[in-house]
């Protein structure tokens, strides 16, 4: 392919001194001093987080304080960077939530690996893992950003639950406790 060489116009004297350009730039700066502010004084000021924002994945509890995760490991399966590692466990038979049977013994979320894709939230059949509005996660060591169950529940808090399927199950079981005859 033939190469076309373009002729550049030589700079004028005014351009070579750079002074008009500097003055024009300073004029823009001066004008903006009286206009509307467009930046935030982070970290003193925090930006509003829009709905559906994909922050750090967190574990949430239902309004009764029951941990919603049942350690089905679907998030672990779907996670593209393999950031999630769950150790499943059994809820003891004398617990108030014994009817749920299964809960994570440990839930490890490696935030060094997480890519905030939200597939874990999409895969979760219990709506237990939710990417909420935590966007700033920093620490002095790598271990600190490998989040475990307690930290994930602390970040997640409680979210409303319209379905409360496990409560319904328990209610049905209590109702049937007298026998069906």
């Amino acid at each position, binding site marked *: 392919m033939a190469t076309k060489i373009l002729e550049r116009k030589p700079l004028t004297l005014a351009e070579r001194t750079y002074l008009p350009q500097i003055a024009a730039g300073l004029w823009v700066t001066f004008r903006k001093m009286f206009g509307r502010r467009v930046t935030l004084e982070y970290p003193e000021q925090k930006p509003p987080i829009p709905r559906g924002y994909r922050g750090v994945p967190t574990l949430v509890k239902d309004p009764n304080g029951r941990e919603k995760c*049942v350690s*089905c490991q679907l998030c672990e399966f779907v996670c593209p960077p393999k950031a999630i590692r769950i150790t499943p466990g059994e809820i003891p038979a004398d617990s108030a939530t014994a009817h749920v049977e299964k809960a994570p013994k440990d839930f490890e979320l490696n935030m060094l690996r997480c890519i905030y894709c939200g597939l874990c939230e999409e895969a979760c059949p219990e709506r237990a893992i939710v990417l909420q509005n935590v966007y700033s996660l920093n620490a002095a060591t790598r271990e600190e950003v490998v989040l475990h169950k307690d930290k994930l529940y602390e970040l997640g808090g409680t979210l409303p639950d319209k379905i409360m399927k496990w409560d319904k199950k328990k209610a*049905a079981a209590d109702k049937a406790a007298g026998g069906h005859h």
Partner: protein
Amino acid sequence: MAENADKLISVFIDGIEVKVLPGTNMIEAARKAGVQIPHYCYHRHLSVAGNCRMCLVEMGTPAFDRVTKAPVMGPDGKQVIQWMPKPVIACATNATPGLHIRTTTKLVKDCREGVEEFLLVNHPLDCPICDQAGECHLQEYAHQYGRGYSRYVEEKNVKPKRKMIGPRVILDNERCILCGRCVRFCKEIAKDEVLGFTERGSHSSIDCFPGKTLSNNYSVNVVDICPVGALTSVDFRFKMRTWFLKETPSISTESSVGVNTTIWSREGTIYRITPRRNEAVNDSWMSDTARDLYKAVAAENRTSAYAIEGRPVKSDEALKALAALLKASKGVALIASAFSSVEEQWLLKKLAQAIPAAKKLVYVAPHYAEGDGLLISADRTPNLRGALVTGLIKGLAQTDMSSLKAAVDAGEVDTVLSVNESVTSAGLGIEDLKKIKYVSLGTHFYQTSQYAAIEIPLLTVFEREGSFVNQQWRLQKFAKAVPGPAGVLADADFFAALLAAMGSPATRGGGLAAVWAALSAEVAPLKDQSYAKIPAEGVVIDGSAFANEKFREGKTLHYAPANA
């Protein structure tokens, strides 16, 4: 099958002709034609119950004139097929000449969808907390024939969940689809009638008979055959989802039956062992005790380091020390193991030949106990016949170790090597061990290991590959499921390296391929065999040279002693 070739008849599955033996049920015939007929209650090793109704298909037979018995031909010149107006269950429909079935018609599809919908009516949908998820027939068929939503608006039945029906099995009655496989297994295979149906209608459920529990040694098989998650294993409960697990074919070391198994592991951790189907050995079953064998891998007394006089060393240092010890010994006793593979036993034979000592004793430690007549034989080692075939021992007389103590007392033997065996079973006490050089090669520490001059860690059956010869002289191979402890050589590699250090390299190059190249050339029954060539179901080798040996096994599932 070849001897029955003249008895084969033609049946037609969706127009595909397959030749089967008369009486073959249509699920198996369809399997042969590559057509899958969904089913829950049918199991190839149990009797036909026909209660799940999932395998409904359309059936037709060739038409014959009622009077003349002549075939009725259609206008296309082919015999007319008389299709039945109603569907039949494929599991209880046996092949007859010219039988036709259709599995893809609208009627069949409607049947399957109807059955699936009714099964899901009272199903709790606990897939997220159900161990069966991922290998659940109900899940699979719901994908294929389910409607994706429920039309059922009434309250679902509530039944007992998390109910221990035995020490190793948990029952969740809500998930049960009442196929009755477990009931039939207990009655027909385990011969321990424990389970039965109680209640009526949609309240029907599985339960133990009053005062009984499902505690026989084959109880976990009901977990394997349960098509849904109603019966789950206590040991595997909530340990890992099945889709994370890697399946490795293996052989159980519990007894000389050589039960075919699958090892389920993830990232070097074994989570469970299940039976692998082998119609000539164990059908689809295995004992509960054999399922626990994986726990030996992470046992507390597991060996993982080479040591000389208790001082940890690298493998090559231990190897050199052992070679030097064997070269310098006046008399050596080798207590070999029937837990070693064929390859390892052959290398040990070579090792015994290479030892220059004047007095050489070779034993294979016996492990006998009572057999259960099903899948545990009286010989509790997987590979005693391997020791005979490879020539490690000349006959079963060498399983009698009583001469060892006398030889040690007489000072004829100054070095004892034991491979995966405790020397106490050979009659040697701690005082004896102090007199001699004792080399302990083993996967685990024994009480006497602390008196060992050299300790060599070995790998468990899950961490190495090799082959065993079971009581039927069936050569079967096992593969490596998980890696062994860091720095520990596989048994065969260690023995081959030891042979090379002794100046008698029996194999060139590494790995089992090299061992087999030399082994198959030398051992007549294993001629032309190799590790890679052994088929998944094993291959029967010629054991006639040992027909006069008195093997202790009694009758088991697919084995009857020759001299009985």
